[in-house]
Each structure stands twice: as C-alpha cells, then as structure tokens.
C-alpha cells in the first residue's frame, strides 16, 4: 500500500496540474478576499460589515470557497486523468489490485489537497490580515478562531480532494466528472438547502464550507441563512464517510471494468 501511495504522490508531483490548481486556488482566494475586504464597511447592495467588526473580518477570512472546490477538482483529475491519458493500463499492470490503487489515489490526493488548502487559506488569511492591519484596526476575532478557520479549510480541502477521487473513478470522463461535481456543489446542494434548512448542514459541500468557517449569506457556496453548522469533528466525519461511501461504490462498479 505504501508503494502504491508513493507512486501516486510521485504522479501528482510530476505533472504541472497540481501546481497549477494550487496557484489558481491561492490566486483566486487572494483576489476574492481582497475584493471582499476592500468593500467592507462601504455599504452598497451586498453589504460587507466593516473589518473592525467580528462579522466583517469573518466574512473576509471565510471567503475561500474556490480553494475548496478546486481541491475536489484536483481529486477528480487524479482519478479520471488515468483514463483521459490512457495511463490506467500501466497503473493496473504495476498494481493489479484496483481497490488498492483507488485507496492509494484517495490518500495521495488527500495529501495534495491538504497542501492546496494550506496555500489557499494562507492567501485568504494573509490578505484579510493585511487589509485589517493597513486600516489600523485591532483584530476583531481571537487568533485561535482565525487558526480554527484556517485548519478547517486545510482539513476540508484534503477530504474534498479524496472525495474527488471517488467521483472521478465513478465518472471516468474528466469534464463530465468536474461538471457533475460543480452541479452538485452549486446546484443540488443549494436547492436542497433552500428547501430544507435542517438537511443542508448534512450535505458534504455545505459541511465542508461550514468546517472552513463559512456562515450564512456569504462566501462560495452560499451557506443557507439560519443554518446551524455541524460541529467541526462531525463535519469532518461526515466528509470522511462520504469519501468512503463513494470509493466503495466505485471500487465495486466502475473500477472493475475492463481496461481496453
């Protein structure tokens, strides 16, 4: 198993894709955080409270939804890329136990997702803190809370990347898998959340967003207003269970298909 994980990690490190997604996540998160912080306290239609308030600072520090979805996309690419580039043949020649390959990919993608989450949250948090300091405000949130948001982003990114591996194994078409992922996160979850607020907290992408500190009415995705988020350990457990469930379904079905 260690051999398989090492090979998968090397695969991720030796293509430009992971680095590109990491740069994209950090760049977008920094940009969104900068725009949000610049608008803070200025009124307008989409109000961002001033940066010297708890609500304002939180809104900036938890605006990093892009990083989360990109972590999931990374996982999808790790799995479905094998079919896009016809490298699955070699992968299964080297390791014929396909369930083991899937597990190794999930583990390697999770590790890459953690790194991506770290870069993404560093961009968001750094930008937020720069704006706050530049305006001469004291921090409206305790350092421990800020650290908890950051840790939430990192953990959620790792778990979403692992979930992405399951999605990419179930849907081998890379573009199809990414579209399915976006449709689920920004379509289905939003609709279910709008219909039933009590259910919303248990949806994986919403759970990942709340784990990363997002609260009602801000960020991407929009967390439904009035939602009571799951406690962090419960959200992490929910994401882990989702990952295992999708992986088990994939391992029993699509993963066993003939490689022609």
């Amino acid at each position: 198993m260690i051999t398989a994980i090492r090979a998968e990690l090397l695969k991720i490190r030796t293509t430009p894709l992971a680095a590109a997604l990491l740069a994209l996540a950090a760049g977008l998160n920094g940009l969104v955080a900068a725009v949000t912080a610049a608008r803070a306290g200025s009124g307008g239609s989409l109000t961002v409270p001033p940066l010297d308030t708890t609500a304002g600072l939180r809104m900036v520090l938890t605006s990093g939804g892009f990083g989360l979805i990109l972590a999931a996309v990374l996982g999808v690419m790790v799995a479905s890329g094998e079919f896009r580039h016809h490298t699955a043949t070699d992968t299964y020649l080297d390791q014929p136990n396909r369930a083991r390959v899937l597990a190794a990919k999930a583990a390697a993608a999770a590790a890459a997702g953690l790194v991506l989450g770290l870069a993404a949250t560093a961009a968001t948090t750094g930008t937020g803190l720069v704006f706050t300091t530049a305006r001469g405000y004291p921090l409206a949130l305790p350092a421990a809370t800020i650290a908890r948001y950051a840790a939430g982003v990192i953990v959620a990114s790792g778990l979403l990347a692992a979930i992405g591996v399951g999605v990419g194994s179930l849907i081998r078409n890379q573009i199809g898998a990414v579209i399915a992922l976006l449709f689920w996160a920004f379509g289905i979850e939003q609709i279910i959340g709008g219909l039933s607020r009590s259910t919303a907290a248990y949806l994986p992408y919403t759970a990942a967003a709340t784990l990363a500190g997002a609260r009602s009415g801000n960020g991407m995705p929009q967390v439904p207003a009035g939602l009571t988020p799951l406690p962090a350990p419960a959200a992490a457990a929910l994401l882990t269970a989702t990952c295992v469930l999708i992986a088990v379904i994939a391992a029993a079905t699509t993963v066993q298909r003939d490689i022609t």
Partner: protein
Amino acid sequence: MAVIEVRGLTKRFGPVRAVDDLSFGVDGGTVTGFLGPNGAGKTTTLRMLLGLVKPDAGTATINGRPYTELPDRPHHVGAVLEASGIHPGRTARNHLRVRAAAGRISPGRVDEVLELVDLTRAAHRRAGGFSLGMRQRLALAAALHGDPEILILDEPANGLDPEGVRWLRDLLRGLASQGRTVLVSSHLLAEVAQIADSVLILDRGRLITHSPLADLMAGTQQTVRVRTPRPEELKAALTADGATARVAADRLEVSGTTPERVGTLAAGLSIPVFEMTTQATDLEDMFFTLTAATAGKEALA
C-alpha cells in the same frame, strides 16, 4: 516448458466474439509472433493475459499463475500495450520514475533503461512532444525496467520508421539471445518473420495456426514460370504428370512440381523453353490465404 499458457480463453463484446475458445502455449526462451489482421483479437488476448480484461471463459497464466497473482511482477513480465499511455505533461525520466516507484524497482534503473532505448537526450522533455516512435521507445524502456524474463509486446513496431523497426528488431533479437521469452503481436508478418521462432496466427478470435516458422516456410509453395511458344502442349504434359498449370499468354504458371521436372518434360517433347523462373509464395501471401480462408467460411456460415 510453456511459460505462457492460454486455455479456452473467450471474450465477447456485445454480440462480437472478440476471442473465441483460444488455447495455446508459449515455451520459455522462444520468440513467438502473435499475428492476425487488425481486429483479430490479439490485443484483447494480451489484455486478458495481463489481467486488464476479464475473460468470459477460460484461463491465461504466466509461469503457472494468473498475472495478477504473480509475485514480483516487473521481474517476471514486462509489457507494452499502448503507446499513447504516457501522460503528456510528464517528462520521459519522470514517467519511468513513476513506473519504478509503482513496481518497486531501484530508481537507479531509470537512467539505464533510458540509455538502452536511446532516449537519454530526451530524458527531461515532456512526453507530449514526443513522436510515436519515441513514445514506443519510452514504453519499451518501462517494460524493460524490471529486467523481465518474459516480454509481452503489442504492436511495438507501430509508428516506427524503417530505422526504428530495425532498431527494434535488433533489440528484440538481443533480448531473445539472453534467453528471454518474447511474445510480440503484429498485423504484419514481415515484422516478426526475421526474429520469431514460431508464429501464432489469429483471425476473428480463433487460432488458425501455431507452428514453428521453419515449418510454415517449408509449407510455402513454389511456382515455376515458363515462357514457351507452345504453352498448351506443355500444359497437357505437365497436367498428365500431376502438376497444376495455367496458361497466361505465352507463359505457363506451374505449381506442384519442380523446375527440373518441367525442363525434363519439355526436352522430352522438344518444346522450346525461352525462359524459366521459380517464385516462392511468400509468407505474406500465405498469411493472407490463411486469414482469407476463415473469412470465406464465416461469410458462408
């Protein structure tokens, strides 16, 4: 002793029987050409042998075990199945590093096999910019990584220029002379005729023949062409002698006899002969005849 053993192997894709009750064995230390027209079932057979495609019936074993249950696989079997299966964003060297990591092969082998396939200078280039020939070389390098005793190659000459084909032939000959077993598929007989000890010919999923190349060569017929002003008379004499002859203008095409016999008969009848040549039906023709025969039967069925 057969190191590769295929028994009753069958695979259907929808209504098509890609491989149909196929059985054969490949002896250790031999080079076997696995031939057949495109779509004959060669690739599907090799993929079943390597555990990538599940057979509907039958078994395929290497050294007595299914590929998936072999211990220390890279040292037993090296396989090249798809030249396109290289990530375009990965460099040649990194591609081999990944395969080495997955096969638990010493990373030190990477540079050795790059050298072996003549790709040292392209080691740090991304495979996306490689020609088909370079990709084939890279795929071969990965197959040779574990210094395997058995090589299974699916159409390795595809995309190679004449120089590349010669290079491949020399490489395979060298590997075979070290006592390795090579099973190499091709849709072109000429590609393997110079290196194979025996050939397996497959058509529409069925085995047509499996015999030593020498036997196949011996079975090829010789045609004698005679230019004479009296072809009809000579034809009658040859037919009476048991040969088969066909008149084409001032020429006779005779089979089932020897040039010595044709000359003797003509001299006995005082028939002038202006020219006589012999032509062996080559392997390629025989290959077509063998595969076309099954196609005909299929059409009648």
